[in-house]
């Protein structure tokens, strides 16, 4: 003990400003929930949320432009705001902004979450035109967690961030307006499995602490190889940390939650999860395996090989027999997580591969936009029971709504990685980085998995354009301004990144060249 005095921590508020803004807005949102009358809440929440996200994005850009990228961690070594972190913050904030536009649609969310499905309470809530407006502060808390997660420079902060990110999401998943039981089931499943995996993460953290005597990522890195006879602690600890993180990105064999949760959650929330959570989780994976375990890569890389191969294969193969559009997209997301893992493997080695890092960053941008766009289209295809999820209902959509079906087909082609879409350059960058890192067999598996995946993407296109529409097929909901903006924005991003990728590639290069702070 230091004579009983506690030194006040130094905190670089300017560096953390984007995060603080988001959390501050979330707290204001809670106050709005508490004090504003019900009829006013939504009209306060929506601009508040959008402004907070836009402001956070501006602050992030200012940070990157004005101050230059800091080379030491902030907040007593707990948070590292470095090049990749700023880039990832940028992606998360933009995607969250876009998703918020999608969330701003009353058809998505339950009138009163506490009412038992099918009960008279629920009917009354619907009749009164209630809307569950807690969605917005919950979203902001979750986004705050997402920002902290990839920037956390010690394991404890990372764990806190993981929970701050996840807890609101568990709740949001249960708020679907239609098929409420499915939604609540998804919520509970996600919560149980998420807690289970968090426990792995915690246990792994404890073991690694036992080995290195520190939870600081840099301290762990410098402890590697200096502690004799304790290797078993390290290896088991690393494995369990890995399990916690791989669960969040939905890598096999920890992918089981993804289809169920993606299907059950309100589609706008699925869009948010599928894009931003994946980005944040990959940021965290990169930080742990790059900063703390970079010198251990000879050991974790082979295991990661197995996980990546399994993830790509399982994602691509199981997607083939899916009949529900959101489940199919969930498996597609699993396969993409596998493709991204090949990039993570390519970053391994002490002289780390900056090219692989920039490839992953570009991939995340490309995939994030296409995903939000894809789910936005899903929200628009509806029939009497809400969204028409079953694939057979999508038959002949190209004849009814050629523009919408064309755009969706375009997103699918981007997922498949067809040239002139953003997906092509994403895959090209990741795979070529993996080849450069001597992971050729992995790339071969990746390409085969892409070919299998192309089958089910194209199958949907065939279904939409070359099948006769069903007589009682779904109608296309008149989209809200927000939804059309999302679709247009995502389509534009997918085209621009596919034809004119250079600016974003350069930006990713620049971010990657600043490297993670070690």
């Amino acid at each position: 003990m230091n004579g009983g005095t506690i030194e006040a921590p130094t905190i670089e508020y300017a560096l953390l400003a984007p995060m603080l803004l988001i959390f501050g807005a979330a707290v204001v949102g809670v106050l709005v929930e508490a004090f504003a009358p019900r009829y006013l809440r939504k009209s306060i929440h929506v601009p508040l949320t959008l402004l907070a996200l836009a402001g956070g994005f501006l602050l992030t850009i200012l940070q990157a432009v004005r101050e230059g990228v800091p080379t030491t961690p902030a907040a007593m070594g707990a948070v590292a705001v470095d090049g990749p972190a700023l880039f990832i913050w940028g992606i998360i904030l933009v995607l969250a902004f876009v998703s918020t536009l999608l969330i701003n649609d009353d058809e998505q969310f339950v009138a009163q979450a506490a009412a038992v499905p099918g009960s008279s309470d629920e009917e009354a809530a619907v009749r009164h035109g209630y809307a569950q407006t807690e969605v917005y502060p919950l979203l902001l808390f979750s986004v705050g967690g997402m920002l902290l997660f990839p920037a956390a420079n010690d394991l404890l902060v990372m764990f806190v961030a993981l929970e701050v990110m996840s807890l609101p999401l568990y709740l949001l998943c249960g708020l679907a307006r239609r098929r409420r039981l499915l939604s609540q089931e998804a919520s509970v499943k996600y919560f149980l499995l998420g807690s289970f995996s968090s426990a792995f993460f915690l246990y792994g953290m404890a073991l690694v602490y036992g080995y290195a005597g520190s939870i600081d990522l840099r301290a762990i890195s410098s402890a590697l190889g200096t502690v004799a006879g304790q290797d078993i602690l390290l290896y088991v600890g690393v494995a369990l940390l890995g399990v916690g993180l791989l669960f969040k990105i939905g890598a096999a064999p920890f992918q089981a939650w993804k289809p169920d949760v993606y299907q059950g959650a309100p589609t706008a929330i699925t869009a948010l999860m599928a894009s931003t959570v994946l980005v944040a989780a990959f940021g965290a994976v990169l930080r742990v395996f790059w900063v703390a375990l970079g010198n251990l890569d000879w050991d974790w890389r082979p295991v990661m090989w197995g996980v990546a191969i399994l993830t790509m294969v399982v994602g691509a193969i199981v997607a083939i027999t899916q009949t529900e559009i959101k489940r199919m997209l969930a498996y597609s997301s699993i396969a993409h997580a596998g493709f991204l893992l090949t990039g993570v493997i390519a970053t391994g080695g002490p002289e780390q591969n900056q090219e692989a890092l920039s490839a992953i960053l570009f991939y995340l941008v490309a995939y994030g936009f296409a995903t939000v766009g894809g789910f936005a289209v899903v929200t628009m295809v509806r029939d009497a029971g809400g969204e028409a999820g079953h694939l057979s209902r999508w038959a002949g959509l190209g004849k009814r709504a050629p523009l919408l079906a064309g755009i969706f087909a375009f997103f699918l082609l981007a997922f498949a990685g067809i040239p002139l879409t953003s997906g092509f350059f994403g895959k090209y960058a990741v795979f070529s980085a993996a080849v450069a890192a001597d992971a050729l067999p992995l790339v071969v598996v990746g390409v085969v998995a892409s070919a299998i995946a192309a089958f089910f993407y194209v199958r949907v296109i065939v279904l939409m354009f070359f099948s006769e529409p069903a007589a009682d097929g779904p109608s296309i909901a008149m989209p809200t301004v927000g939804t059309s903006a999302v679709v247009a924005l995502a389509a534009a991003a997918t085209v621009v990144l596919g034809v004119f990728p250079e600016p974003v590639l350069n930006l990713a290069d620049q971010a990657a060249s600043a490297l993670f702070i070690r």
Partner: protein
Amino acid sequence: MQSPAEIVSHAGGVTGVSWLMIALPLFGAAVLLLGGRRTNAWGHFFGVAMSLGAFAVAVVTFVELLGLQPEQRRRDIGLFEFIPGMVDLGMLIDPLSISFALLITGVGSLIHIYSVGYMSHDRDRRRFFAYLNLFVAAMLLLVLSDNYIGLFIGWEGVGLASYLLIGFWQHKPSAATAAQKAFIVNRVGDFGLLIGIFTIWTTFGSLAFADLTHEVAGQASEGTLTAIGLLLLLGACGKSAQLPLQSWLLDAMEGPTPVSALIHAATMVTAGVYLVVRSGAFFEAAPTAQLVVTIVGVATLLAGAIIGCAKDDIKKGLAGSTMSQIGYMMLGAGLGPAGYAFAIGHLITHGFFKANMFLGAGSVMHAMNDEVDMRRYGALFPVMKITAVTFIVGYLAIIGFPLLSGYYTKEGIIETAMHHNQILGWLAVLGAGLTGFYMSRMVFMTFFGKKRWADDAHPHESPAVMTWPLIILAIGSIGLGAFLVLGNRFMNFLSPAVGLPQPADMPEPHVFGVGTAALATLALVAAGAAFAWFRYGAAEVPAVAPRASFLTTFARRDLYGDALNEALLMRPGQWLTRIAVFFDNRGVDGLVNGLAAGIGGTSGRLRRVQTGFVRSYALSILFGAAAVVGALLYVGNI
């Protein structure tokens, strides 16, 4: 011999915004296609404006280029990185590309203006202008790109525009078929071009013209260079309707006449010549490939001329003539730096006089209720004087009447060929004689002799919007050749882009500019024209084509080109597909379906793991965690 100048990268100045040349017509096409019916009222003017805008940018760029020292006149303008580490898209502004750009935008704008009148009765005029703009943009991309990828994108773009415009009246089955035929035949050539580009990439590791200099090309083996040359030539043959891929051009006349003038006479079909000249570094190091180029050129110039002799359809006659003239250009392009300036010069003058005659033919058709059979024309001179006079100027230019445009450029090619190889030279002279015959025949059948009009024909002169382009093109047909060729002006202008020939490769200058070859050519042309006068000017022309000799039938049937294609390619192709289908059903499908069934089955089984029970998910996570721990311990040797 002097090699081309080095390509320097460019910044600033008007040249820096020369990408507007491509962007403006592309924007026009986008507005007209996406705008739909809303743009019907003003769409054609917008299209014309975009084309004129591109022309203005081209002129300003040209003037700025002229202001530079000759060895500074190859400017590379990087636009953006397209495929990381492989291709950066950019524009190469040099004397060669700017010559093309001026031709494309200049003649293109005139044809846009003409089309305002020609298509005035068509419901789909807006769509027509959209396609025309698309074509101009793609063609400019083709010639202005600083690498083979951009060139290829433009190459495919003009192919698409050509397809859309040949089939513009798609309600006519013949037009739809002709469009498909053009597309499919071009596929063969594009395939060659594509493999040629692949070969260049694997051999030299770059596709940028700046990297593929003569020194670099010289490092590869001659075999490789010959292969590259022949593959590029195959591409050029497809686009430029050279033997053996000539068959589509005659059918392509199904398109509206301005299209025939712009795409299938003045610009697109000359892309092959551009490709050969632009790839000079490869061809000059591969004499075999060059020889093949000249042989293809000579064979096509004769074949086109023979076909032209027998056609009664005025547009098909002109199409045969186009084939033939491009044959001359190909011949010139195959002669190396000595021939380049004449080939490109002939290309430019031909762009003027052929566009002039096609538009003239369009004017005649406009007057004659879209009749194309020359046997139904006759004695049109008095009723449409402007059309007739401008057409005749074009006619005199193409047959090489002394002092007119075609005389200088064609004579240049013939003389250089004669100097290079006597046989090629004399065959080219023979082709010129045939040109004299068939073009005279066309003029006499159309404008002179007796009226053979259909009963309901009331020919009249076309409106001013159509005749003014004719007049401007006719002026170009008169003076452009002399301007380019006298004093080697054009050769010196082009030299930074394509190099200068060794003096030994150049024919001796003649005292009065007239040598043996020129005299022989003039004599043959005069004989051909005289023969045509006796057959078609002085004598009665039957309104229905009479039964003809074997030779005429041979020519009327396009030298049995289609029959040959059918017998050699289509039927065996059908057999091949049948055999392939058989084996596909029996062999390949078994494998593929088996594989697909295997994956599908695996998928079905794996899917059952997804039980929906959260406890089994947790169990799978537990097993997975155990596996990861075990694997890491195993790898870590603990």
